[in-house]
């Protein structure tokens, strides 16, 4: 009898049990392993590592540097992203479509590529620096801040766009109608309503900035931040995984703290949203003195992105980048004949990303379903865990996987699918949110009506849920796939000589200043990502991000 009940409970909750297992294994377990490792000295529990960290001025300095970058980047990116989102949805700005396209471009390029492009352009030996015979220096704090401020704009945009759209323009009109000045209206109505989403996007940028190590590595010069130190500790000559775990924990603990108190602080959750129809924009009349500065700002950002990417393309088409500017197409054939086996890397990248997209989307949508439809405690709990990777810097997530899956009951490192799993679970929040948003628009009674007419659970899924859920499926699938193609932060620790991927190889080449191979490879990578994304959006019939 008891056994029967237990059996029925398990059977009815099979999905929950499976999801719980996956989340615990691939999110909680690796993170706990990082913490455990950081508290272990010679096999016993100890805080000695932390004492060592905080008493050493060098490390404290690195920690402070990390904040010194993350704080201004958070402010600037959030501001720019907000201006972009608000103007794209509400203001009639000439050329805003183009601005939007360019500003979202960093979403499809490897995060470090912008840093590299910038250093090619105005770096110490940059193209423009040489041309004008200048002696400025962007390598260091300034360079990191410039690049990160630009490349994180799209994340803010995607977090805010939905919120700005759902702001009823009538509210702004009512306020104006009641005699409020434009700025007063903006401050007291618009901003007040957007505050939760703004705080969320700021938090996201803060985390992204702390996690990013490609940018500081390529343009940071001698300015050290924590993510780079973690990377060096992991891959340096004498690998110090334990020390990486300590630094990872120092990074992760405050972020998780913020995540936990966030619900109380902000009250409302908003995340990157990649699905959902782009609602009809409702423009409002605005004075030129507001439009002009906004247009200028967007123009500058767009131009910068254009120049950075343009420089990379140009350098790939010259004989010796930065030295001999004779035009040639030779670099491309040479790339394909070189030791860089592009086709294999490409195949690996696509294979890994596609599997990641599939896993991430299926698990993410399943969690969205359980959390929206079952309204049970377990559903909420699953969603909560699934959104945690939002606060985990990629580097730390990678360290966690190395520690958790090298030995023991799940030994997966060295396999290619651990990369796919890593990418899938790191991007799980995007899939969950896409699924939730879509599902909330699908009336539950539709599913019940179908069941009622004799459709089995599977049939309901096939006839009702699948077609109506398709946009979310494609949107998050394509997002994860593209992210997989360009990501490095977590997977860089998980690739093996046998299974390397394009983005990691590219960083490797650029870091070692193989410009003749690196620049064409960068162009090839971006072109392929762009191609794949366009193709998938075409095939799926979804509008996508409109890049």
């Amino acid at each position, binding site marked *: 009898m008891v056994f029967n009940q237990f059996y029925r409970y398990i059977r009815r909750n099979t999905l929950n049990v499976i999801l719980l297992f996956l989340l615990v294994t691939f999110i909680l377990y690796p993170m706990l392993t990082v913490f455990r490792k950081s508290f272990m000295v010679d096999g016993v529990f100890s805080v000695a590592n932390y004492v060592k960290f905080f008493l050493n001025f060098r490390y404290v300095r690195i920690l402070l540097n990390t904040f010194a970058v993350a704080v201004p980047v958070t402010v600037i990116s959030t501001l720019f992203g907000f201006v972009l989102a608000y103007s794209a949805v509400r203001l009639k700005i000439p050329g805003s479509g183009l601005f939007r396209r360019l500003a979202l471009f960093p979403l499809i390029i490897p995060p470090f590529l912008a840093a590299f492009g910038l250093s090619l352009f105005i770096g110490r030996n940059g193209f423009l620096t040489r041309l004008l015979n200048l002696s400025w220096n962007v390598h260091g704090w300034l360079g990191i801040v410039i690049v990160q401020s630009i490349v994180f704009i799209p994340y803010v945009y995607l977090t805010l766009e939905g919120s700005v759209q759902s702001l009823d323009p009538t509210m702004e009109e009512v306020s104006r109608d009641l005699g409020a000045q434009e700025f007063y209206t903006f401050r007291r109505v618009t901003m007040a309503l957007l505050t939760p989403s703004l705080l969320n996007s700021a938090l996201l940028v803060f985390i992204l900035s702390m996690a990013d190590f490609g940018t500081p590595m390529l343009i940071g010069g001698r300015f050290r931040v924590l993510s780079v130190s973690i990377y060096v500790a992991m891959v340096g000559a004498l690998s110090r995984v334990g020390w990486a775990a300590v630094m990872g924990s120092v990074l992760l603990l405050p972020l998780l703290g913020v995540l936990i108190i966030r619900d109380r602080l902000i009250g409302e959750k908003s995340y990157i949203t990649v699905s959902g129809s782009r609602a009809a924009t409702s423009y409002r009349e605005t004075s030129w003195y507001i439009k002009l500065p906004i247009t200028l700002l967007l123009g500058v950002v767009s131009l910068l992105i254009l120049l950075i990417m343009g420089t990379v393309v140009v350098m790939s088409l010259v004989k010796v980048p930065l030295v001999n500017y004779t035009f040639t197409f030779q670099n491309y054939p040479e790339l394909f004949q070189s030791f860089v086996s592009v086709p294999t890397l490409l195949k690996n990248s696509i294979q890994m990303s596609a599997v990641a997209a599939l896993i991430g989307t299926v698990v993410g949508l399943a969690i969205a379903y359980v959390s929206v439809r079952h309204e049970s405690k377990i559903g909420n709990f699953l969603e909560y865990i699934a959104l945690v990777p939002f606060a985990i810097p990629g580097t730390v997530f990678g360290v966690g996987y190395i520690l958790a899956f090298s030995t023991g009951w799940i030994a997966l490192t060295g396999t290619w699918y651990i990369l796919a799993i890593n990418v899938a679970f790191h991007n799980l929040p995007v899939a969950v949110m896409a699924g939730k948003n879509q599902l909330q628009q699908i*009336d539950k*009674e*539709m599913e019940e009506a*179908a*069941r*009622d*007419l*004799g*459709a089995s659970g599977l049939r309901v899924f096939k*006839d009702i849920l699948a077609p109506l859920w398709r946009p979310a499926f494609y949107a998050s699938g394509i997002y994860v796939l593209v992210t997989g193609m360009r990501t490095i932060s977590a997977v860089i620790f998980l690739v093996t000589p046998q299974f390397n991927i394009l983005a990691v190889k590219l960083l490797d080449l650029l870091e070692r200043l193989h410009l003749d191979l690196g620049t064409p490879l960068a162009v090839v990578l971006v072109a392929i990502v762009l191609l794949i994304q366009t193709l998938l959006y075409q095939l799926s019939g979804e509008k996508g991000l409109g890049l």
Partner: protein
Amino acid sequence: MKVEIRNLTKHFGDLIAVDSVSLTFEDGKLTTLLGPSGCGKTSTLRCISGFYEPDEGEVYLGDSVVNQVPPHRRNVATVFQNLGIFPHMTVFENVAYGLRVKKRPKSEIQDRANELLRMVGLGDLGERYPKQLSGGQQQRVALARSLVVEPGVLLLDEPLSDLDAKLRVEMRKEIRKLQLELKTTMIYVTHDQEEAMAISDYLAVMNEGKIKQVGNPAEIYRRPDNEFTARFIGKANYVNGQILAVEEEQVSIDLPFGSILAKRTSDDIQTGDEVGIMFRPTEFSITDEKEGVNVIAGTLITSMFLGSLIRYEVDVGMEDNIMVDVPEPEADTLLTEGQELFLRILPDSIYLIPV
């Protein structure tokens, strides 16, 4: 198909949504569950359709207990409050869905679905998408979609509550017409007593998870057997009193505003019994006599002109004021507020309710 529930109980945590309800829904009839919002109507329906599993009691469809049968294996169809129309299917595909799921032959699907569309007056709209239809038309799609599978019982959960008043009256006639035509067993849920009266063969009045009274609409209206029903159905005045004396034909009752005589309706009334008294607002007359049998004095609080009748609210010295409806009023006979007046209640129209 006859439907029966026995001792049906459904909890949500500590809340008892359905409290040991037993009820039979006759084959081929339309039975309405009527009660205020939150009284457990939907929960009862969902136990019948299988979306909830009862905590206690049994659901019989025909002769078999179906507690363990999942929704899609029950011969039950539901018209949901939000309709649950499939937006990605045409009207025809929506209606044909149940037959497709049951893998009926193509020609049969075609014929049946078109026949149903014709019956609900949507013959030409099969190729449209639901978005392109009005609220009333969508309602018809939902009805046709459920009826096409010839369900043993059709459940309707406040299907008209999203429509405007005029359309609601029209659609309820439509539903009733279809029901009489197809002789489908229907269980209809509403909190609107007028709608319930108009549409039903039988009414089950529900409150706080319990069935208060079952009967045909006329019985329920005229002979409520408990305070809740009396107050909920129609406009009624309800007073608690005590039996003073029992005679052959009549009983005299002590009420807060004096004693009155009422017709004796049952044998087991005894002197000293506590009873509830109900009288409908139409069962008074305004009289010039200041004294006499069943004459009550009161003060006019408000008068409301409602076209075919005038409704007076009269203070007779109790907590609740008494409602009095005077049909076909003439404008010059309107009484002024604050005025004293006398009401006569006919002994036959007083209805005693055991407390």
